[in-house]
């Protein structure tokens, strides 16, 4: 849906020069079908000051999948995500994020991350904050047009000119989502992006993320504390423990998923049992 909004037909082309620039960027925004990137992690080790967080982890994420990582605090799930995104350097091992078909490096869709906090620039308007996601891409007017389309996609078109300080927490996180998506990413990493939101806003955001993921086909990697969120969104769930993957579950429930479906509840129960069962005796 965002893709449709971003296609060249949807963009106004006030004069021929801009029209041409738009069409080039349009290709960038719409890589060949299945632009999702694959992630390969081989024997990854990561430690901070001698304290081991990830120990010999292997992982393959196929392009276009939605994977959730759950685990107790300090299990290394955020570190794994940050390492995959290149925000942390592995102590040992390899992380490869690549396009499935050998495309030229310029055509590879970018990787994006959504943080726990919105991290909006307080001194830039909502629209300019979304345009940050297009840094180095296209002309200024084109960036504005695409940012406006992305804002409309998350339902905030009327907030374009406002300062972030005037928005609610949920709205800010939606702006951050628009910023992450505006460039048409091939990999979207979500680092507990909904942790600070109230229950109803959370569910709305989950639906929004799922809808956009289905229409855009990027590879999604969600780190969360909330097992029910993982079960509702992901088609694969990894439970992390002791610096490695303890449980690798497939979620074969068809979408759209209804909240409270028995199949989902069973799965959630199983994961929780595992997490709680491995808790050291107090």
């Amino acid at each position, binding site marked *: 849906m965002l893709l449709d909004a971003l296609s060249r037909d949807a963009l106004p082309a006030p004069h021929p020069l801009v029209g041409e620039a738009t069409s080039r960027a349009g290709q960038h925004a719409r890589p060949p079908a299945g632009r999702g990137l694959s992630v390969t992690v081989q024997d990854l080790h990561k430690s901070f000051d001698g304290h081991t967080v990830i120990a010999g982890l292997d992982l393959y994420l196929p392009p276009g999948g939605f994977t959730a990582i759950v685990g107790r605090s300090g299990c290394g799930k955020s570190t794994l995500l940050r390492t995959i*995104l290149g*925000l942390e350097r592995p102590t040992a091992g390899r992380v490869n994020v690549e396009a499935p078909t050998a495309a030229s490096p310029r055509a590879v869709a*970018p990787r*994006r*991350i959504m*943080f726990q*906090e919105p*991290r909006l*620039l*307080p*001194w*830039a308007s909502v629209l300019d904050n979304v345009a*940050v*996601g297009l*840094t*180095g891409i296209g002309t200024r007017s084109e960036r504005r047009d695409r940012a406006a389309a992305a804002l409309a996609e998350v339902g905030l078109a009327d907030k374009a000119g406002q*300062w*972030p*300080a005037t928005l609610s927490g949920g709205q800010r996180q939606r702006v951050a989502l628009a*910023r992450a998506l505006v460039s048409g990413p091939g990999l979207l990493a979500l680092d507990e992006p909904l942790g600070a939101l109230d229950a109803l806003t959370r569910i709305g955001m989950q639906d929004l993320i799922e809808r956009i993921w289905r229409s855009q086909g990027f590879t999604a990697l969600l780190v969360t504390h909330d097992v029910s969120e993982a079960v509702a969104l992901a088609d694969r769930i990894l439970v992390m423990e002791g610096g490695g993957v303890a449980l690798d579950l497939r979620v074969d429930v068809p979408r759209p998923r209804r909240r409270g479906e028995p199949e989902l509840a069973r799965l959630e129960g199983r994961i929780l049992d595992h997490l709680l069962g491995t808790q050291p005796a107090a």
Partner: protein
Amino acid sequence: MSRALTLSRLRDTATPWLLPAAILVGWQAAVSAVFVSNRVMPAPLDVVRAGWEAGRTGELWTNLGVSTLRALAGFAVGGSIGFALGLANGLSRLSEALTDTSVQMVRNVPHLSLIPLVILWFGIGEEAKLFLVALGVFFPIYANTLHGIRSVDPALVEMGRVYGMSRADLFRRVVLPGALPSIFVGLRYALGIMWLTLIVAETISASSGLGYMAMQAREFMLVDVVVLAILIYAALGKLADTLTRALERSCLSWNPAYRSA
């Protein structure tokens, strides 16, 4: 409705001036009733008359112009050096390691204590005033620029990096706007120090300017001119403050703390 609004706006504008106006009236009354000798304190009307006289002969404007020029020149020199060094030390650990300790040592020397030395170096020429003002203005601008850059949210810087901002982009779009509130604090301090330094310097060693005008008047026992000079300082200080506030409001309108009502 609109009339009520106008009235309330009028009240908001008038309230801060009530106290100065009351003091003025009381002062005039006290002197007129000879509670206070006009050798000690001239009546406000005498001060106005002195101002009118000095304005008519052009003496006031010449001195005001000379002082303003000195203040601005010193501010420009000291302010830009302080700003540049604050940026450099905020952005580069090496630059900070090299210079910050020295700056902190010099900072603890009251800059006005250098006046005898400055007179030895420059005599009572323009350089002396420029040097002192520049030195006084340097420290608050330096310290607040450095602090502003250091206190930029690292989470925002990381965000900028992830989104592929170049170093120049990062500076222009994240670091500088983030440091701006603190830089403005430094600016306001610096403006205060600018006038203070200049007046002291002109009072001690000058042949023109507002401070010189006041000292000259003291020699001839012209109390009204002395008081006139002091009131002009008050007005200039208020003017500088108002301008900075307006600048803050327009540059920091994103920040709820600075937004005009």
